[in-house]
């Protein structure tokens, strides 16, 4: 994001970060449909995915309105290529085993929960209204994912080993959740976005608490070369979008 972009461009870009993170995380969870370890977990993951899609729809519609180029939620979800997506790269990481999905969700749920908790006071009243709704849902999601992380981490030797391996594998993607860039700072300065330092501190506190309860240790800092928020993604997003966008790209404007 360069400083030369207009206020509307920056605003739209910021809303897309939130929207795309929900959309991509929801699509990943939806991949569990029919493959969950038990029927209850299958239903739970699908329900969380549904909430995330609902948030994404509201946010994409808002982003399209701010952009002012007549792109609706569908045009934004199905018509953009990977480099135009602004989700954090953590959201696009493959499901792996159940432990990896849960570790990814714990990190994302905590980030969304703290971000939306702050956004309820956003100067953008439409964004604040969406945040008020999302924060209740995220609280519910957090209860689920953090509950499972404790059961896995503090469970059997095998479940602990898997949760620990997932944490090691995914930790490098959390830099992007913690480190604010110029756009985050700009949005905070104009009252639209939350104060990054506050979200970061609360996120760390929340994570530290659940990792301790799960008898897992916070991994050492790892170099992070991806910037999903600025459109620099891992290969995983391309594959995800191929599935997500296949039908509307093959049959533009299709409906049934």
């Amino acid at each position, binding site marked *: 994001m360069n400083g030369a972009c207009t206020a509307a461009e920056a605003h739209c870009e910021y809303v897309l970060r939130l929207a795309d993170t929900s959309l991509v995380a929801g699509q990943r969870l939806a991949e569990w449909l029919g493959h969950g370890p038990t029927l*209850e*977990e299958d*239903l*739970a993951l699908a*329900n*969380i995915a*549904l*909430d*995330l*899609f*609902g*948030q994404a*729809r*509201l946010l994409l519609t808002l982003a399209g309105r701010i952009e002012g180029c007549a792109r609706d939620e569908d045009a934004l979800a199905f018509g953009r290529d990977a480099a135009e997506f602004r989700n954090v790269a953590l959201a696009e990481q493959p499901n792996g085993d159940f432990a990896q999905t849960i570790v990814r969700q714990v990190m994302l749920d905590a980030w969304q929960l703290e971000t939306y908790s702050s956004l309820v006071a956003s100067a953008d*009243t*439409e964004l*604040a*209204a*969406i945040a*008020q*709704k*999302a924060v*209740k*849902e995220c609280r*519910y999601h957090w*209860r*689920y994912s953090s509950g499972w992380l404790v059961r896995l981490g503090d469970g059997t030797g095998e479940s602990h080993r898997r949760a620990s391996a997932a944490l090691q594998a995914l930790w490098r993607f959390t830099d992007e959740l913690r480190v604010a860039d110029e756009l985050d700072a700009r949005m905070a300065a104009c009252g639209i976005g939350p104060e990054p330092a506050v979200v970061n501190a609360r996120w760390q506190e929340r994570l530290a608490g659940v990792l301790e309860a799960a008898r897992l240790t916070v991994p050492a800092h790892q170099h992070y070369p991806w910037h999903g928020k600025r459109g620099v993604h891992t290969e995983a997003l391309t594959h995800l979008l191929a599935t997500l966008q296949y039908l509307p790209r093959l049959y533009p404007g299709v409906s049934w």
Partner: protein
Amino acid sequence: MSEPARPAVRLRERAVWRTLATVMDPEIPAVSVVDLGIVRHVRAGPDARVHVGITPTYSGCPATEVIVSAIRTALDGAGHGEVVLETVLSPPWSSRWLSAAGRRRLEAFGIAVERVPGLVPRCPRCASRDVERVSEFGSTPCKAHYRCRTCLEPFDTFKCI
């Protein structure tokens, strides 16, 4: 608006509310959209149009669009004139908005209601409080899944959110 027009406006709003009370939730046909608390306002303005505010229960509830179209069909069918449907997001829907009648109808339909977070619901079949939660999620976004330890039947519970 001039004073004498008020009673007519109120009557019109009340008639719209009565029609809305006949529109059932597509996934839980025991309760109406009014019972669920998703109709936030009915305002008949001086411009001859009636504005109806609707809020979704959950952001991703797939029934929302079906509900909106059912409301549209019912209001048009009842001849309420030009009706404008508006989406209201704030304040967000809460299960506290479920009406007392709605709660009774849900229980009679076999769906328990979580009144306070943490307080276990009563089994809708045998009224036992000896129940266990199977999952925080259920067959629709607004429900969790429980099992009764007394009559051994599984049942849905309206989540407290």
